């Protein structure tokens, strides 16, 4: 089978889109988006980006909801592995290429690493303007008034934006961007990240990017705090961390437990504790 499944023309078209996306941070670039053996909506965009940039020197990590063992992550990792023979890892520090769904790794990324996000809906304006033609004109004019009005209305009714994940951000002072369904907790990590961040939406046929060291700010009023998810006094029952995004899990007796969402982070905390 051809290396990385896609034919060379398909890869070149995706690569061109990636370069334009890097040149225009936060702007959504259209691409052909070939159908993959994985269903639309299940990560074909992230997959096409990964397959177009991966080479023999890479080490691949795939996570879904922060977990390497999640069924979707396993399936995608196996597929990429089968068409490239690439080295894989669950260790965030060892990965050169990380494909993720809905979360940014807890551990800070370094220069030279690439984070590829799986994106369901690439255009943040879709939440206030589903007509793609109208939304494209709004982006051209940097007209994000509908997002600001929504924020104002929510704040007056509920004290804060009602947006829970996919919180709109402004990239390089210009484009309003959809960071994919990551929690608000992760939103600050988009800013000035040392890694290259690429976003692929297969079904909607869009690619966008944030180069390293780029300014990314959440859309918010100056006099309001950007509130992130709060786990109050809870800590991870496995590694005792009070500093990570936690999952609420119910056991067979109906009792609730809390664990680090990022499984690699949890493992590394335990390793650190063992060393002491």
């Amino acid at each position, binding site marked *: 089978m051809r290396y990385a499944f896609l034919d060379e023309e398909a890869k070149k078209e995706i690569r061109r889109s990636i370069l334009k996306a890097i040149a225009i941070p936060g702007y959504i670039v259209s691409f*052909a988006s070939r159908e993959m053996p994985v269903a639309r*909506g*299940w990560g074909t965009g992230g997959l096409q980006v990964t397959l177009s940039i991966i080479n023999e020197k890479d080490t691949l990590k795939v996570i879904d*909801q922060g977990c390497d063992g*999640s069924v979707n992550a396993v399936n995608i990792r196996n597929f990429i592995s089968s068409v490239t023979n690439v080295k894989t890892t669950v260790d965030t520090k060892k990965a050169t290429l990380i494909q993720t769904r809905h979360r940014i790794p807890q551990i800070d990324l370094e220069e030279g690493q690439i984070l590829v996000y799986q994106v369901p809906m690439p255009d943040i304006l879709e939440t206030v303007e*589903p007509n793609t*033609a109208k939304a494209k004109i709004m982006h051209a004019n940097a007209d994000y008034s509908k997002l600001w009005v929504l924020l104002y209305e929510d704040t007056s009714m509920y004290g804060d934006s009602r947006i*829970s994940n996919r919180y709109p951000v402004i990239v390089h002072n210009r484009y309003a961007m959809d960071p994919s369904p990551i929690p608000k907790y992760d939103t600050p990590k988009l800013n000035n990240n040392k890694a290259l961040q690429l976003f692929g939406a297969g079904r909607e046929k869009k690619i966008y990017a944030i180069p390293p060291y780029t300014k990314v700010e959440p859309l918010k009023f100056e006099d309001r705090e950007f509130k992130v998810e709060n786990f109050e006094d809870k800590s991870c029952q496995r590694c005792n961390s009070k500093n990570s995004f936690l999952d609420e899990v119910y056991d067979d007796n109906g009792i609730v437990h809390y664990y680090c969402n990022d499984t690699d982070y949890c493992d590394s905390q335990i390793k650190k504790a063992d060393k002491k």
Partner: protein
Amino acid sequence: MAYYAIKGGEEAIKNSLNFYNDFTKNSEKIEDDDLIEAFTFSIDKVMSEGSLYSKKLASQAIKRSAGDLLNASFFLRAHRSSCQRIGICKELDVNDMRLSRRISSAFKDIEGGQLLGASNDYEVKLLVDIKNEKVDIKNYSNKNNVIKSALTPLREDNLIKILPKEDEPWDITRVFPTAPYPRSSVLQVMSRGESGTLLGFAYTSMRGYGDVHPTIGDLRIGELDIKFIHPFTKKEVKIGSIEASAVESAGTFNKDENGDTKLTTGFGFCFGKNETKAISMSIIDLTLYNNSYTVGTEQIVASDFEMVMHHVDGIESFGFANHYKLPHYVTFQTDYQIFKSAKKYVDEQNRKDVDGDIK
């Protein structure tokens, strides 16, 4: 003993696929030739939605999907994606079709007559065994059955509105267009669209959410030859023939770009015998390009390009609908937290009186 976060995904997937194989292994007993002969309409639906003309591959896809035809179309699309493109064939003209069926509702009689061909239109839908009256059919060949569209006389009299034609047809599998959408791209999206979705959209138009009053001018099913310029000899060769359905619907009248009043038409085309889909496609085409006069343009799904271009592809909608089964516990956690904060805020506001003091 601490409860570990979900691991063992690999095992779960393997077991799940094995269980699923219990469904699909039964279809392996069926030979492709038998399936192609027995379920010709299923094969045609899958080829049309998969956008790949291959009865054998469609048969294998149907077997792999244990009869789930939309899933089978997905298999074909994915396969199509992996095929190298050699080139583009010569343009097909549906008037060149070797007809096995051709009718026109617009006229009582037409050149060549109303050729019913093989059709279940007049079949009485009773599950009990009803034997059809035996008939003595002489040998029938479609070799000389090449008849132009029944609307041709109207076209020749310049009475039919002709939409502007692009120099080169668009290719949606290479670049998906943004508005304003080239007509070729609109027709491509519909031709490979999901049959039920197109039927639903067309039905809204038929029931009044559209102002087109369609009449079938020409419905035809038959064979079309695929011709291609050989890359080495540079000579035109025939590489095969396909069975296809084509429908021209006539609507009301409208002004064309020169200001002349013309009769409007819509066109539907798909691989295989797909009458319902071709009819639906032609009605949506009519509705898209002709503004409503009686019902206005609000809430008319079938006349909205954004609605049609982004919502009729079965592989896309199927994938996205089913993606909701993927884990969403992080986003749900964030939704839940926002809900709690919002509720807390509203409750606090309600407890305060007009002056802002707690009641």
